């Protein structure tokens, strides 16, 4: 058994969602954080309607939509979540929010067949029912799915975007889950909630009576319960790797996108992100257009506090990336932006206390992997590729060593071989 860890995060944020939906320019990068390359479909000077496909990767059937209407300006490159500078398509917002008129009218919801629904999902840019890095391959085309698990846990400490979505849109979310169950022929849906998140539980309990197929399961507030394998183990007590075809995992943001798709026939154009950290004056959850620059959003919510050595982090405190400027494009997989003080202690030599092994949720030996970094023979025995990169080893390390980065390196070495 690995030791359970609860990561406390001090800055609590209210459940309200504010909006910032009027960006001057919208950037659509031609590569995503996973390294898929997109081809742009609009030329300079074209008029782009809201919801038009701007760039797509036909091989994997991935599409990026414009979240505003306006004229396209080609060229220019900006940073995306992983710190890479990527060429972008830029759209000047004319604030008219015009949709293309030829767009097919939405059907009465329950009349969608499964194929139509899946096609619609893909065309709306919801190519994966999970919007996180840890997501597995797309598996919703399988028949005979037994469970739909809605991961309503925050993917990292400090975030509260899914909580606030549940709190504000509980009824819509439940309705959407019910419809999805109907269309996809899934018998049961489970919403996994944080047991300390009383507000969302109360709100959901108010409406859940009318949906017999949906149940709520409270999961302990322990990191990293929100990772797929561990979540399935926690909720259903099953091994996710064996039942991959039977279980579908999604999360609240995606469910909300599906809701928008079914209700308004609108592709992904907005998402809720958490803006937090010591260096932000007004910490809050905010709904932004996809493609907005982070600097623009932050300047619109009163900006930064003065810090000595600020770090700008895209993503949560554990899996996030520190990037070099605040001109970062908010793509659909950015769930959090943090500005924090860089007051981390310098790392000391490893004292072999064994804490990283105690806490590792997949029971690998991070310390041994670190020691045998150059010994490929030993690395093959130690299986660093089991690592889910939860970052608990780096969190717990008393010598403040970035253990996860070492394991990640080892992982790459083993993968090459």
């Amino acid at each position, binding site marked *: 058994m690995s030791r359970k860890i609860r990561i406390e995060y001090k800055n609590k944020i209210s459940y309200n969602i504010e909006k910032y939906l009027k960006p001057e320019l919208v950037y659509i990068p031609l590569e995503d954080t996973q390294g898929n390359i997109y081809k742009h479909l609009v030329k300079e000077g074209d008029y782009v309607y809201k919801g038009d496909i701007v760039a797509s990767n036909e091989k994997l059937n991935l599409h990026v939509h414009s979240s505003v209407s306006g004229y396209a300006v080609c060229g220019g490159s900006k940073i995306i979540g992983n710190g890479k500078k990527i060429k972008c398509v830029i759209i000047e917002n004319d604030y008219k929010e015009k949709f293309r008129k030829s767009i097919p009218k939405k059907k009465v919801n329950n009349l969608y067949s499964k194929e139509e629904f899946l096609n619609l999902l893909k065309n709306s840019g919801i190519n994966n029912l999970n919007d996180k890095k840890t997501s597995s391959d797309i598996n919703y085309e399988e028949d005979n799915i037994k469970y739909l698990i809605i991961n309503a846990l925050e993917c990292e400490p400090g975030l509260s975007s899914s909580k606030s979505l549940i709190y504000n849109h509980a009824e819509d979310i439940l309705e959407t889950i019910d419809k999805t169950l109907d269309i996809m022929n899934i018998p049961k849906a489970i919403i996994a909630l944080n047991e300390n998140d009383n507000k969302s539980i109360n709100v959901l309990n108010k409406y859940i009576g009318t949906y017999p197929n949906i149940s709520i399961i409270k999961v302990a507030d322990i990191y990293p319960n929100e990772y797929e394998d561990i979540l399935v183990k926690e909720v259903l007590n099953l091994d996710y790797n064996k039942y991959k075809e039977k279980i579908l995992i999604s999360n609240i943001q995606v469910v909300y996108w599906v809701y928008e798709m079914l209700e308004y026939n609108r592709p992904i154009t907005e998402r809720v992100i958490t803006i937090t950290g010591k260096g932000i004056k007004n910490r809050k959850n905010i709904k932004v257009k996809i493609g907005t620059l982070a600097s623009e959003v932050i300047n619109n919510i009163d900006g930064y506090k003065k810090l000595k050595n600020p770090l700008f982090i895209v993503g949560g405190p554990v899996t996030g990336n520190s990037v070099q400027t605040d001109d970062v494009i908010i793509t659909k997989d950015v769930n959090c932006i943090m500005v924090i003080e860089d007051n981390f*202690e310098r790392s000391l030599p490893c004292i072999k206390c*064994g804490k990283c092994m105690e806490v590792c949720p997949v029971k690998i030996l991070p*310390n041994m992997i670190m020691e045998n970094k150059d010994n490929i023979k030993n690395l093959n025995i130690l299986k660093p590729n089991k690592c889910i990169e939860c970052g608990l080893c780096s*969190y717990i390390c*008393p010598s403040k060593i970035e253990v996860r980065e070492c394991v990640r390196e080892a992982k790459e070495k083993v993968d090459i071989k």
Partner: protein
Amino acid sequence: MREFKVRKGVYIKDNNNTSNMMYTILVILVFYILFAIYKNGIHPVIKGYGNLYLVFKPIIYVLISSAICILTEYIFYIIKKEKKNIYYLFEKSYAMIPGVFVALTISINTPIYLLVIGSIVASLSKLLMGGFGKYKINPAVVGSLFIGLIFSFLSNNYLNPYEMEIVNGNILNQNIISYENLVASYGNLFDFLFGNVPGALGVTSSFLSIISLIFLIYKRIIKWRIPIFYILTVVVISMIICIIRDIGLWFIIYNLLSGGLLFGAVLMATEPVTSPVSIFGQVLGGVSLGIITMLIRYLIPIQNEVLLSILIFNMITILLNYLTIKLYDKKNIKIIINIVMILLCVLSAFIISKEIITY
């Protein structure tokens, strides 16, 4: 647009850090020093043996040895031409900790020049093996054993003047197992629990060790499996001996409380750098430490059995860490090794019970 620095890694960290852990241990050692002052100074002086110098002797020892350790490390880095300031010695290398351990684990009659030599040896053994975090053998054990074994003829015995009077100069023969010989000549088992018995300078208080064991486990500072399995093994082996040779149950408690065993178990065997890393290794290490201690205590006539067994345990640690890698994911072999260890326990109990003499 604003520029930011880039830093890779995890951006939220646990409050616990290495300095915290090391200084907690140092604070616990202060209680042992206080105990040493009571045991070797205040108590004999009240009873009318010795003079006031005895009261200050433990604290002088500790100060000298830790000062020597810091000085050795400072000079070492000057000679190596590495720029390390004093802050580094305190905050990152914890130079004084081996010194305090050496002072606490030697006999009260050790001449001061031997203590200086021991501290230098301890500090050098740490530095030559690569400094903090890289040494393979507990430097305090090296320094203390260096004095205790090689110069044992100079450090006489473990008795302070008061105890000398009680025992009447009779040095204890571990092999004659009887309540009168082992326990009654120094008092009763409660004296053993509170540490008012002959032994090294400050390690005899088992009561203090038990409290610090609980505290350190609660604070998650030490690897709890090592002391717990160490203690369990000693209990099991002495229980088997009790059954075979028909000795009273006092023998089990005596084995636990004597010879600074609990101090070694709680504070020296759990020294993080030199003890096994994995859970498997910690359990095996604890068990083998117990077996080695019992074997040395009753088969080899020396007084430093706990320190010596910790030295051997540190060497086994290297093997255990190697095994941890090779046996990762091989549960069957681990189970076999565990069974072998249990058999070794029983076997060593039989060997010891053959060797000892009872009346």
